[in-house]
């Protein structure tokens, strides 16, 4: 993290950090869950292989999302950078036939 971004972070410390933490923990999980579902449905392999590949990648995706949330310039960018791809992947999963997961 550059010195510049660190200063911006400390400019609005509590709110920014809390927002980034929420984006990292819950946004990151949502992104990982959507990615896992989309991959499990769309990977061109037998269902079991697709599922295991998706799961192998899921925690890597989560980790990258957490790092992104804290490394990017602003809390707003953290949210957009996580939710936008999550939404795209959710649509992809829905097109692939995923119903309501609950």
């Amino acid at each position: 993290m550059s010195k510049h971004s660190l200063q911006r972070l400390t400019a609005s410390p509590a709110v920014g950090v809390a927002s980034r933490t929420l984006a990292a923990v819950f946004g990151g999980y949502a992104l990982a869950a959507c990615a896992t579902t989309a991959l499990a449905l769309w990977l061109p392999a037998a269902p079991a292989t697709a599922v295991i590949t998706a799961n192998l990648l899921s925690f890597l995706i989560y980790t990258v999302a957490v790092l992104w949330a804290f490394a990017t310039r602003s809390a707003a960018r953290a949210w957009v950078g996580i939710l936008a791809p999550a939404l795209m992947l959710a649509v992809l999963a829905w097109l692939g036939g995923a119903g309501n997961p609950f």
Partner: protein
Amino acid sequence: MAWLHTWSGLLLGWLLLAMFVTGTSAYFREEISLWMAPELHHSQPSPDTPALAWAALNAKAPDAKSWDIQLPEARSPVAQLRWQPDRPQAEDGGRRRGEQAVMDAGSGELLSPRASRGGDFLYRFHFELYGVPRIWARWLICVATMFMLVAIVSGVITHKKIFKDFFTFRPGKGQRSWLDSHNATAVLALPFHFMITYSGLLIFMVMLMPWGMNAAYEDGWRGFFQDVFPREEPAAEGGAAMPMVDIVPLVARARDTFEQPVRRISVDWPNRDNAVIRVSTAKDPHITDQRRGGNPTLVFNGGTGELLETRPGDEAVPGAFRVYNLLVNLHLARFADPTVRWLFFLFGVGGTAMVATGMLLWVSKRTQQLRGKAPGAALRLVNGLNIASLTGLLGALAAYFAANRLLPVELAARESWEIRVFFLTWLLALGHALLRPDRRGWIEQLAAITVLWAALPLLNVATTGSHLFSATAWRTGALAGFDVVCLLMAATGGYALWRVVRKQPVRGRGPLPQRRTAEDGA
């Protein structure tokens, strides 16, 4: 990103430390369980063991629904007998596991070891704690694991000079030395740390990330597992009574077919006309094999001894599964021979040291910033929790082992009392550490654990026939190894004690807050 590393590390550091200590012990879970059951130590495998086990089950449960015999191997000198009685599950109070017994592999006598959870308690503690609802504990552990994964990756990013730092060690310099040892233990075993956290998450993927399999299969994870590990159901009903063939020729045939020693014999509907006997041998362990099963097996008709099927063992599995198996097998050291097992144990010790030094560094840095002023409540609390989670846990571990030797064998709920001793000792250490979150606290607890660990081999001499000076202990290397590790633990504790005692606290320096320096400065 340094602050992310610092705070995520501190917040879950204590839990991670407990997971690392108990998880490291789990590499020797079976050896610990054996050590904690002295009644089994005299068992010696013999070529007659299969026949003896066969006779024992024919006497004990001739009309069971199924039998399962685990023959002795390098890590366990006894034969494990299990059987499922042929009665509706409801009558058993819903017990699915059935009955079991341990057999002396040499004499065929059924043994009754003292009640103890052995190494299983420590193994289970490292991923589901104790006395907490299992599902909550597992989620908490997984959150801590995820934090550690984030701490590792952000730690690597923080340390741009990571490889240069790795070769830097400045001993005897307080905070600098803790930083250097934190870097060294982290980088040295970095692949191990990454593997152990990532595979830890994968092991719980059904709980943590079920969305892929829920979407791809009608009935979710059940469908996934049925697809990956198709289960063969045994015949629902036992046939008419009919004695079975002798097991010895079947064992010899399996051994000759696969050129491996026989490990396991299982029977569906023993002593009925539809009895099926499966004889499985050991296999060359491959690091990418699936976790369970896959051993070469011969399937026989129980009444006639006719060979029904030859299963050569593991089939080729797709690459993704091999990657998954690789990570999970590495986590569990399932493929490991003794040398590799020790190597993993040392990595686990290194991981413990990494977490511990990181937390000592946290305290050391903030103590230094005080420049001689009295440490505040928060700093004292962190230091107290550090003491309790490091020396306190190691002391509780030694007390757990000592309780195994000291509690009366006939004590009711004995295995729970061993666990209570573990937690009471830990609680005692926590109380002590919170009262003395300073140099004296460290000195007293280090002295206590040195004495406790050194006492274990002596206690063994006094209470068992399988101590360091006996042939039994050295015949089963695990037993002698356990006592040697106890002595090494004592030596390490003693060395740490010597270092802390010798180090004169300097105002505003050194890792340990000192109240007196504060009064002097005032």
